[in-house]
């Protein structure tokens, strides 16, 4: 009998009671966030991001987990914190404490320290909290030596490592405790929140931000935090057992999504003597993870493969050796792999390898929103969340207190679920630099172990040695004052010739000078705004400076310029309004004026939302609007109505459904945008100076759209009519599925996919492939995709109902104006796009076209 079997056998007695296989809770998605930081971070920072995702929960379940705590805050010496199990028991009925301790703690466990964790004396002091959170007792425990010997002997576990047996004992003891005091009784009296080493979980009925307030976690510090806003749909929840996170042993998991095969996964677990007690998808997920990692001892890569298998074309793209292993994993675990939309964030501690991890895993079909971010400065931090603005909220909160952090990450990206490229999962690993220190080393890797870093190789940055001249800031200022730069673009183009050798301070002086310049008058103001915006939007060589630092500074100066604008109603070209002054909104004196709205305090949705306010301004006659201070406000540009003629410039973190329904207006997004951008887009123009999220332009009917970066999953799905879209990066997958946009040469729609990115020197380079996914233009019946593929990397097996053809003269004529406009907007020159390996080529040599082929299933052919 091998070890796995022995452990499994030892659990036989645990599940004698018939445990239902149905879910007791129904919930859909939720808001999830996780961070891992090389230094310890206080709980109040995760609170900000939970507040940002308030609208992803409904106040019926909030939870957090923290890994890598501070010994002084926990009231124990470091050795105890690291060696002992941190057992947290929630007492729903405080009178059950003695009984619980007498039956499950005192007889088996040696308690080194125990305390009731601090909380407010009165839960009603937390605004909106309706259900009293449980009293939580924290015990630092080890298993009694004799008890462990007996346990080991009873199940012949002697050949296992001592600590593995101890882990198993703790797991089973908690199971029994839950069984007796939670799962098996009609009344639920107590349950184990967590029992891993150096980690803790807390959960309540309420919002996560209320939890942080109630349990006084604002100042509690940890290296890893995960938080969850729950959206259960069964009402009248009065106990927090069903809230996330759930724990295996040394790991906690939060989850956004829903399985279709809960029953099957439960059966899979039951065959291995694992019995869920809380009856939710999330608990099952973490039990699965615990099984694969602690019992089967799979490396993380194989665990991820077992959860989110690599399928279809991605599987065939794997190296032969991996294919063999993955096939074996899939054969053994397919029945246990969760099917449906899900996204996991896992915080784990490996006390024996002395490392802590934050892991984000997306399902194979990428059905849930997910964003990853990395910041590598003096301290390093990785953040994972459902929405980008939740990441920005954490970073802002941190940077407000500690200038080692910046409010903008160095890199934001999405995972491609079940893929051969990144495996759909990223891992932030913290390891000790020195023992007994809270400062740690942070490393980000994908499923395959490939390192993700934003740290530049200095040699690469400086290899361009064509420096001809440098302007110190005072010379630039003089030139600016004497009107030597005719246009903002001209100034920008001169600046970027030498910006890369500017030191941080020079750069700060430069943008500060631009801000001061802006105060001289309306013309100067608009000039300064445009130059700063170009510095923000464009990619260029910045030397060894960090782009996040530059963006932060530019953003600050722009905010300063915006907020020092005269109030609405004054006789100024630019007029300012914010939440406090919103009632002063009035028509512009003439339509040429620009309204600057600080939207920070506006609601993300509803009657008092930023979106509605912009509509109100438009209806009063404003045709130019700048909205700044965005923190995830949704539906911007919605509701402007048919044939709207307004230009909106957005600065900050824009939210979901941006410009969805747009019918005439122009929107410029100075930064990344989020999910569901441009749905049912009909007319008008959208320019995004960054990436776009999931289901971009789903069901679109027209319009002209330019994207500087990448699109996530399912862009332009089900689009019809005549949308014309340029995506300079690439897409995760499912581009233009069921595309029905007529004949592009006869007025129909198309997508131009350039497949490029910028290197550390701000130069354009090709991505590894213009299109990595296995589903391009599937089941399309109209329109076309023009993709830049000089090396012919895209193959027919990525298509389903499409074929690749050569561009005709008419095709080249058709797309050229869009490439020119792309050049004007982003500075991506047509010449550069047509240059391959230093040689200038023609459009039809560099671009290829996918057109639909009539499918029997779709057309009348054969009938």
């Amino acid at each position, binding site marked *: 009998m091998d070890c796995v079997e022995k452990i499994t056998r030892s659990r036989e007695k645990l599940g004698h009671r018939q445990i239902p296989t149905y879910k007791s809770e129904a919930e859909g998605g939720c808001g999830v966030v996780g961070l891992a930081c090389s230094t310890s971070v206080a709980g109040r920072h995760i609170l900000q991001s939970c507040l940002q995702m308030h609208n992803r929960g*409904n106040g019926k379940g909030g939870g957090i987990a923290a890994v890598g705590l501070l010994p002084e805050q926990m009231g124990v010496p470091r050795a105890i914190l690291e060696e002992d199990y941190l057992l947290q028991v929630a007492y729903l009925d405080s009178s059950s404490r003695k009984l619980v301790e007498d039956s499950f703690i005192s007889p088996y466990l040696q308690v080194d320290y125990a305390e009731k964790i601090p909380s407010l004396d009165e839960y009603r002091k937390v605004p909106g909290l309706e259900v009293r959170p449980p009293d939580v007792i924290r015990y630092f425990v080890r298993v009694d030596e004799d008890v462990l010997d007996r346990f080991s002997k009873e199940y012949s576990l002697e050949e296992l490592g001592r600590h593995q047996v101890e882990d198993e004992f703790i797991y089973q003891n908690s199971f029994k405790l839950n069984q007796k005091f939670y799962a098996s009784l009609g009344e639920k009296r107590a349950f184990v929140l967590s029992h891993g080493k150096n980690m803790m979980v807390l959960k309540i009925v309420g919002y996560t931000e209320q939890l942080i307030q109630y349990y006084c976690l604002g100042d509690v510090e940890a290296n890893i935090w995960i938080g969850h806003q729950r959206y259960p749909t069964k009402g009248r929840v009065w106990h927090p057992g069903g809230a996330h996170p759930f724990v295996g042993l040394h790991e906690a998991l939060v989850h956004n999504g829903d399985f279709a095969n809960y029953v099957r996964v439960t059966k899979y677990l039951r065959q291995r003597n694992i019995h869920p007690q809380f009856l939710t998808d999330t608990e099952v997920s973490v039990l699965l993870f615990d099984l694969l990692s602690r019992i089967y001892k799979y490396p993380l890569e194989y665990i991820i493969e077992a959860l989110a298998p690599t399928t279809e074309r991605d599987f065939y793209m794997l190296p032969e050796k991996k294919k063999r292993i993955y096939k074996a994993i899939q054969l053994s675990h397919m029945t246990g792999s969760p099917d449906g939309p899900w996204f996991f964030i896992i915080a784990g501690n490996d006390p024996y390898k002395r490392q802590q991890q934050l892991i984000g895993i997306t399902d194979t079909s990428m059905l849930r929103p997910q964003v990853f971010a990395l910041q590598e400065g003096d301290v390093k931090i990785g953040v994972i969340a459902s929405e980008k603005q939740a990441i920005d909220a954490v970073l802002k909160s941190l940077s407000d207190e500690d200038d080692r952090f910046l409010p903008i990450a160095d890199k934001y990206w999405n995972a491609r679920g079940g893929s051969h490229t990144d495996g759909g999962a990223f891992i932030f690993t913290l390891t000790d630099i020195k023992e007994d220190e809270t400062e740690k080393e942070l490393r980000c890797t994908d499923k395959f172990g490939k390192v993700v870093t934003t740290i530049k190789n200095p040699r690469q940055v400086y290899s361009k040695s064509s420096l001809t001249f440098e302007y110190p800031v005072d010379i630039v200022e003089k030139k600016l004052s004497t009107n030597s730069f005719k246009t903002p673009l001209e100034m920008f183009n001169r600046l970027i010739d030498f910006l890369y050798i500017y030191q941080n301070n020079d750069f700060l002086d430069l943008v500060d000078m631009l801000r001061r310049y802006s105060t001289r008058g309306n013309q100067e103001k608009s000039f300064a705004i445009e130059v700063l915006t170009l510095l923000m939007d464009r990619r260029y060589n910045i030397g060894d400076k960090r782009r996040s630092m530059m963006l932060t500074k530019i953003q600050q100066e722009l905010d300063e310029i915006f907020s020092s604008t005269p109030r609405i109603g004054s006789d100024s070209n630019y007029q300012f309004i914010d939440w406090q002054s919103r009632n002063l909104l009035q028509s512009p004196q003439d339509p040429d004026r620009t309204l600057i709205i600080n939207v920070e305090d506006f609601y993300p949705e509803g009657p008092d939302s930023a979106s509605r306010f912009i509509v109100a301004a438009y209806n009063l006659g404003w045709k130019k609007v700048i909205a700044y201070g965005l923190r995830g406000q949704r539906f911007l540009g919605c509701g402007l109505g048919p044939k709207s003629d307004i230009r909106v410039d957005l600065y900050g973190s824009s939210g979901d459904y941006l410009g969805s329904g747009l019918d005439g207006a122009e929107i410029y997004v100075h930064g990344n945008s989020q999910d569901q951008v441009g749905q*049912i887009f009909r007319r008008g123009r959208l320019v995004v100076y960054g990436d776009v999220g999931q289901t971009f332009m789903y069901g679109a009917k027209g319009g002209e759209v330019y994207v500087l970066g990448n699109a996530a999953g399912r862009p332009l799905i089900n689009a019809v009519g005549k949308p014309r879209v340029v995506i300079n990066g690439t897409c995760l997958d499912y581009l233009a599925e069921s595309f029905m946009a007529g004949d592009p040469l006869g007025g129909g729609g198309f997508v131009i996919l350039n497949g490029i990115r910028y290197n550390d020197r701000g130069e354009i380079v090709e991505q590894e492939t213009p299109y990595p996914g296995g589903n391009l233009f599937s089941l399309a019946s109209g329109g076309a995709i023009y993709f830049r593929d000089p090396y012919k990397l895209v193959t027919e097996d990525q298509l389903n109902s499409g074929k690749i053809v050569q561009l005709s003269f008419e095709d080249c004529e058709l797309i050229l104006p869009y490439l020119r406009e792309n050049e004007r907007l982003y500075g991506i020159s047509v010449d550069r796009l047509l240059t391959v390996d230093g040689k200038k080529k023609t459009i039809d040599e560099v671009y290829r076209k996918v057109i639909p082929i009539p499918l029997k299933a779709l057309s009348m052919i054969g009938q």
Partner: protein
Amino acid sequence: MDRANSSNCIGPKCKENSFYCVSLCPYNAIHIEPNSDYMVLGDPIWTPDLLLATWYQAETGESPLSIEYQIGDSGGGFDKLKFKFRKESSDGKEKENIRTSIELNKRSYGARIEISVPWYGAGMSFGSISLNMMLARAKASQAWNTFVSTGEGGYPEELVPYKDHIITQLATGQFGVTEQTIGYARIVEIKYAQGAKPGLGGHLLADKVTPDVAIIRESVPWNSLFSPFPFHSVYSVEDHKKHVDWIRAMSPNPDVLISAKVSSPTDVEMVAVGCYHAGVNIFNVDGSYGGTGAAPDIAKKNIAMPIEYAIQKVHRFLVDEGIRDEITFMASGGIRNAYDIAKAIALGADGVIIGTADLVACGCTRCGNCEAGRGCPHGIATTDHELVELIQPDWGAQRISNLYYSWHNQLVDILWRLGFDDIRDLRGAGLSQKYEEYGGKGLLQSG
């Protein structure tokens, strides 16, 4: 010589009459036998009698005398339920004050919209049915102060004059949905699923995607249109909330009502509560008996939960959660006549949604050939230029209106006989403790 008009024949029981044609015929040339058309008509749900009765009511506005118009022959569902009436029918004046109107919004926010009859028209898209048929339904809805949904094939300009009685539907293909068409509507319906084919999106086969249809949907003519099975932007309840918020953000009407149409999976009551929390005003469960000939046979009647079971489940759950009076709950999928309407309401719905019956009123024979070739030989489910002329909007509107008139009278009669003076009091009154025992305590019994 006049053509024989067999619909006036009352059959063998005429024998007792002095004018019995068979015995009067001097040449013994007349004999009576069941009409051969009648023999091949219909199916156990829509029996030949129900079809005939619907045609009769559409023609005359009255309840038929000798045709079974209350119940079908399926042996289950509404056909197994009967009311336990307390009073005999009456033609008296006392029925005048009986109210049949229902409120479509019970929330503290949104427009107060009351419809005069406890039903409105289900979504049937341009493409699946003709423009004339859509206009007929719109006109009838206007006449009866109720609504009809556009379906997912866009919003033809010709419907705009009736916009106060038209629901704009947003379905997974998002065909023809723009800020403009959202802006027309007092109610926007999000169609997540259809009871006849849960798990499948709408589909219009190539034959019916004529150039006219392709223009309004902005697609390619003669190419099948398969809408995705889900909304790719909605995979969870918090996505759903965002979706609902989005529609409100797009609409120029701050009081717009949002309806969510779902099929009836086993956990439909959870979906109902999720919809409540997302802020929808109308929750519509579509059961498995509905669907035209276009739904694939493999899906029809085989996937979703029977509607009469789903209604009770949802109603009770909403009551238990304490939110029943904040959401309007509409049932649909196989509601064929006034008795079905009353039963659905007695089981716990606020009202119902009607699809096929409108078509039958205009001459649909339920032949089931809605999707292929030029489509419907009766000019209903087609966009063929010649065939559509078979239905003229005014004629169709009058037929539907007549049917509604007859239903209204029957409903009033049902309420009278049950002892109610308001349809709202009937809601849930037919429930007993357990489904199997519905003969027990409520007003409905199995028969």
